[in-house]
């Protein structure tokens, strides 16, 4: 009953307030849908800082130049509260009430999957700097693009490196936390292991927030060479601590997300060693960019000055998402506010986009399972603590070729 009242009133009020927003000075109104509260707030905040950094630099320079005139950007936030339903509501509000020209996307796949159809409904293009789940791209949203390649594109790279260790690992245990992203990561790890002829002795998807110590005791009895884990940041920290507490170190511990994150290294200190991960960007990467930042180092310095932290790949990808929009809209030459035809045209420009940024190349795939994901990048494999790329490995080239014919 109460929930029902709440939803009705929400609906009624959103219809009432829809007409209230009037004309303002010509700026690009950009909706940012991300989780600023809830369980994913850590990652959400990373995306927020990335988007903010881009907007700040654009506005410091006077705005985006369209036909000789400069138009500033205005970021309008919608808190997804780490819940897909809230993300959809936020997207609905930004689209219907705030009449945004463009959207910058959420952190985490579930939230993106909820927000994307809503934006699709209102024909608003979105570039997201996070959300690495393959599911998003399988849905083939016309209006959704992403600067980070999906985990099935990147995740295998670290395993490829581990496979070259001497002696080569033979047996692996793969675990995933039960959320959309982590499960996809675990699936990728499992499939890649099989491809590399590493035997998967145990594969489990566990409910998030579990104490995995007893599980690890059981795993220890199997003595695998590799433990691969898909999960979010604090789960990774807990897993490493659990292994430490039971005094067990496999040859390689593989995690996809977060190993390059400063928080991970700070929280674990020495224990973060021996953890392998994959990433697409680090501040030490050699890149050459045209817009705003000339290279990765200058970007990192900017972030350090603004927030006092070292940026990770998600933050960089988010700033790069802003750059993608900037480049596309400049090519299009459309001044705000964008009408529906211009938004459609913007999608076409984005599809053809091929630019180089501090983050690396941005080139969205047109078809296949990586539809609209950025496949211009080269994933890197890392060993944590030093967070220095071990080597650059092309992902399974066959797949890569299929996606970009």
């Amino acid at each position: 009953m109460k929930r029902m009242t709440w939803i009705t009133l929400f609906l009624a009020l959103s219809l009432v307030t829809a007409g209230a927003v009037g004309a303002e000075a010509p700026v690009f109104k950009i909706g940012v849908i991300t989780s600023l509260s809830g369980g994913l707030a850590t990652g959400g905040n990373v995306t927020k800082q990335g988007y903010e950094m881009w907007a700040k630099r654009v506005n410091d320079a006077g705005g985006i130049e369209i036909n000789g005139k400069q138009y500033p950007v205005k970021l309008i936030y919608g808190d997804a509260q780490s819940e897909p339903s809230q993300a959809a509501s936020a997207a609905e509000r930004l689209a219907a009430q705030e009449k945004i020209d463009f959207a910058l996307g959420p952190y985490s796949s579930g939230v993106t999957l909820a927000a994307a159809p809503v934006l699709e409904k209102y024909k608003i293009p979105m570039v997201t700097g996070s959300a690495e789940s393959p599911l998003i791209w399988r849905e083939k949203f016309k209006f959704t693009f992403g600067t980070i390649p999906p985990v099935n594109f990147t995740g295998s790279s670290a395993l490829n490196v581990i496979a070259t260790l001497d002696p080569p690992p033979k047996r692996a245990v793969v675990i995933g936390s039960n959320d959309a992203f982590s499960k996809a990561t675990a699936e990728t790890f499992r499939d890649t292991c099989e491809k590399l002829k590493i035997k998967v002795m145990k594969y489990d998807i566990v409910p998030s927030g579990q104490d995995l110590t007893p599980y690890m005791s059981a795993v220890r009895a199997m003595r695998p060479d590799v433990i691969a884990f898909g999960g979010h940041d604090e789960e990774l920290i807990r897993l490493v601590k659990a292994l430490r507490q039971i005094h067990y170190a496999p040859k390689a511990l593989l995690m996809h997300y977060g190993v390059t994150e400063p928080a991970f290294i700070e929280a674990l200190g020495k224990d973060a060693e021996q953890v392998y991960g994959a990433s697409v960007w680090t501040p030490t990467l050699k890149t050459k960019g045209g817009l705003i930042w000339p290279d990765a180092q200058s970007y990192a310095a900017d972030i350090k000055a603004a927030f006092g932290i070292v940026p990770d790949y998600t933050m960089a990808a988010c700033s790069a998402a802003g750059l993608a929009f900037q480049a596309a809209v400049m090519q299009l030459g459309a001044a705000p506010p964008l009408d529906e035809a211009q938004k459609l045209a913007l999608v076409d420009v984005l599809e053809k986009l091929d630019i180089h940024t501090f983050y690396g190349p941005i080139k969205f795939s047109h078809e296949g399972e990586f539809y609209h994901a950025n496949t211009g990048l080269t994933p890197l494999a890392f060993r944590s603590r030093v967070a220095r790329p071990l080597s650059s490995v092309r992902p399974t080239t066959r797949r890569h070729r299929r996606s970009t014919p």
Partner: protein
Amino acid sequence: MELLPQVILDGILIGGIYITIAIGFSLVFGVMHIIDFAVGEWIMLGAFLGYYLNGWTGLDPFALLPVVFVVFFGIGYLIQPAIQRVISGHRGNPLLMGLVFTFGIMLIIRGLGLTIFGFYSRSIPSKLAASSWLFEKGDFFLTVPFVRLAGLAFAVAITLVLHYMLKKTDFGTGVRALAQHKESAGLMGVDSHKTNCIIYGIYVGISAMTGVLVCTIFSMTPMEGGRYTVLAFFVVVLAGMGYLPGVPWAALFLGLIQSIFIVYLSASYTLLAVFVVLYIILLISPKGLFGRGW
């Protein structure tokens, strides 16, 4: 290999952590009939105080426990009158009022926590965390992580101290009288106001110490309090609401279920199993495993 001893041990060690999470919560419910939604937030705040103290002094987290307790005892003591106001007087449904009020407190603490501590996970280093005993004999092996053992020892110590306090001291007699009958306890000279403040202070103090423990064994973010609120709730319901002696057994029971399930049955179904078991036990015996709840 023979896993069972290890699985049981792990279950007991998890249970030890659950004891400390739930025992203060149960005490406060038993004495004041408050379901404190903010229990997880006290745990979170304690964890962060421990984290910063550890950073400044470099002392081992276990050595910091008394300091954390004293600080949060004070905070609890000062906050209690507001809660008392909410649950007393001519108000409808004090239980629900207390629940909603502490829900508000929870939001405030969480908001402040996020503002002050930021979003990242923290964890407190401890020398104990890096060592363990290892017995190995043929197929049989058993690892005892020091830090978790210390956690269990702490839980047992807290339980014994509370037991002693309630059963053997004059203060404890007053508390028990108060829990059973507020008015007549007052007539017999128990200062209910002060007693409630002290009990609430003890509860907040224990919860904060639990935070330090959790942050040493696992990690903590300002968003995570809610998880511990749920755990505290479940343990207390299993034990029987407000039935303090049931808490350790319920906590160990929960720990063992989790540990055995995740290893022997299905890792995916662990949480489902926990909720179903809770539901079934509630149906069979609403007053907890021992039928002694409120």
